[in-house]
């Protein structure tokens, strides 16, 4: 469960997130939609702890714990996962080595034993086959030379192996064709569980045909300006965001 209260975020002295409040209970999927520049990505980066995103007010609790005081890696180990809009390339570090290192670092933080290589390989093979990722890709350095679609699939693959309890999908649908979108959405839906919740950030209603949200929020000018059920997304598709921008 994620509870954000009156969150304010500045980048280079400019206020971007302006008193945002939002609660996502366990087991629920919430969508955040909004026009360009509304602060959608800022919210996801601020929650993950990206440097230079200065929190100037408010709070964010993940399962009751204040995550804003933690390092990005500690937030991850507490169960937060951000699927990046633009996943980074990590030259020279093979994909599986990277994910296994990440998983073991998280486990260490939580006081758990390291996962054995065979156990990890078994999980990796299962997830890879579900996400149609071939073995060759797993040996290559993470994301290096991958297509946009492959990178997005790789985000979901990492998510499945790291088993977070709160996921933020930042425009996961951008740059995906219909087939890739379906594979990614299936991967996300596979992760849905009563103790897991997620925030799906998107411009378009299309992704929400595949990942059905419990609630839809509209983000404009750095705060939530409207909340509704899945029907709100359909309405936005028709009417656009104009009325929110004018209202703000």
């Amino acid at each position, binding site marked *: 469960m994620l509870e954000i209260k009156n969150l304010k975020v500045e980048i280079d002295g400019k206020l971007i997130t302006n008193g945002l409040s939002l609660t996502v209970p366990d087991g629920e999927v919430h969508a955040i939609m909004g026009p360009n520049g509304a602060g959608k990505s800022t919210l996801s980066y601020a929650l993950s702890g990206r440097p230079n995103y200065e929190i100037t007010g408010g709070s964010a609790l993940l399962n009751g714990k204040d995550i804003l005081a933690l390092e990005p890696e500690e937030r991850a180990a507490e169960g937060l996962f951000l699927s990046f809009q633009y996943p980074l390339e990590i030259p020279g570090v093979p994909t599986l080595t990277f994910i296994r290192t990440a998983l073991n670092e998280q486990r260490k933080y939580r006081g758990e034993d390291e996962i054995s290589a065979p156990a990890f390989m078994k999980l990796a093979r299962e997830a890879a086959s579900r996400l149609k990722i071939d073995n060759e890709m797993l040996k290559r*350095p993470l994301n290096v030379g991958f297509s946009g679609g492959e990178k997005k699939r790789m985000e979901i693959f990492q998510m499945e192996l790291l088993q977070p309890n709160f996921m933020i999908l930042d425009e996961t649908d951008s740059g995906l064709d219909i087939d890739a979108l379906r594979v990614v959405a299936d991967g996300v839906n596979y992760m849905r569980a009563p103790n897991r919740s997620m925030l799906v950030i998107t411009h378009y209603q299309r992704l929400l045909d595949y990942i059905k949200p419990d609630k839809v929020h509209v983000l404009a000018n750095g705060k939530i300006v409207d909340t509704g059920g899945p029907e709100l997304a359909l309405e936005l598709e028709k009417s656009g965001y104009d009325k929110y921008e004018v209202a703000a």
Partner: protein
Amino acid sequence: MAIFHAILKEFSDTLVGNDAREYFAVHGIPTRRNEAYHFTDLARGLEKIEKPNGEIPLANIDADIIIHSTQFGEIISGEKDGISIIPNGQIEISDEIGAKLCVGLSKSNSKINIAPNTKARIAIQRGAGSRSAVEIDIGENAQIEIIEEQAADGGLSSNLVNVNIGAGASLRRIMIMQTIGAQDLRYSTINLQANARLDLFALCFGGKLVRIDTNVNLFGEGAIANINGAYILSNSQNDLTTIINHHAPNCQSNEIVRGICTKGARNVFQGLIKVEKGAQRTIGKMEHRGIMLEEGAQIFAKPCLEIYADDVECSHANTIGALDDKALFYMQARGISRAKAKMLLVNAFLAQVFDDIQDEKIHSDIMARIEDKLGAIL
């Protein structure tokens, strides 16, 4: 300065290097005025010469011949058919100041002759304060591996290496330069005859004053030279100069140098590929990539091509930058601590230099040294 001259005089009984010693007695320590090199001031670097602090233990290496050089002299052990070692054998010295300096400083010199078709591994291990010169003549079609380790903590060490790789022969030279706190000067000239091959791998940790000069001459058609170097500098200085000279047609050279510097560390990379008029169809590639990990790190790079032939394929690439902050954050967002993320990125960056070492044991030894060093400085 006075100490430098005293050191030169110390060895005036060895024949080799007398001309060089005479030269320095007249001209003094080389300065920017009389040497082509402009990046490190030798006179200042050699102002004070301290005694070695002691030996760093050397790795155990399986080799046919082991040359163990210390501040007190040289011990050569091992025997192999086709290899003859001549102590105090005459050595040819180039007119370059760096070569003169190394030979002038040397306490001992030896010549190694390797018969055609010999297959052998030679280990050269040097301790603090060791100063030697060696000339190695590799016969046709021989396959030789030289594993050199300099393990010096303080003191002045020097080393001159001349190698001739005969037609069809190959040399794999691995240099591990643990020269912490040392003044270390070395000069190599490696000549390749037709279809000869050189694979050089160097791992450098720098020191108080470290200069590694490598001159490669591709004299015979079809020769191939691969030079791979990595530097990890923390509170140390390191100068790498390589001159690859294509004299004959249809030769290939490929140089990759990568390294990192922390605050207060300084690396110089000077690379030159020279293609002589007759060296048509040369392929010459050079790449240097440096990462400055902190503010206050310094990396100087001067990649040069000098081409007098018109049918060649030559390139040089050079980048100097910082670790990618976005990549570090991405890794942190997956649960990897910033320190570990840096370690993974730097390790991967440097590891590529040693990808082509097929000997599993040597490869993993080098990787372990890199990891240890990074663990200590990151």
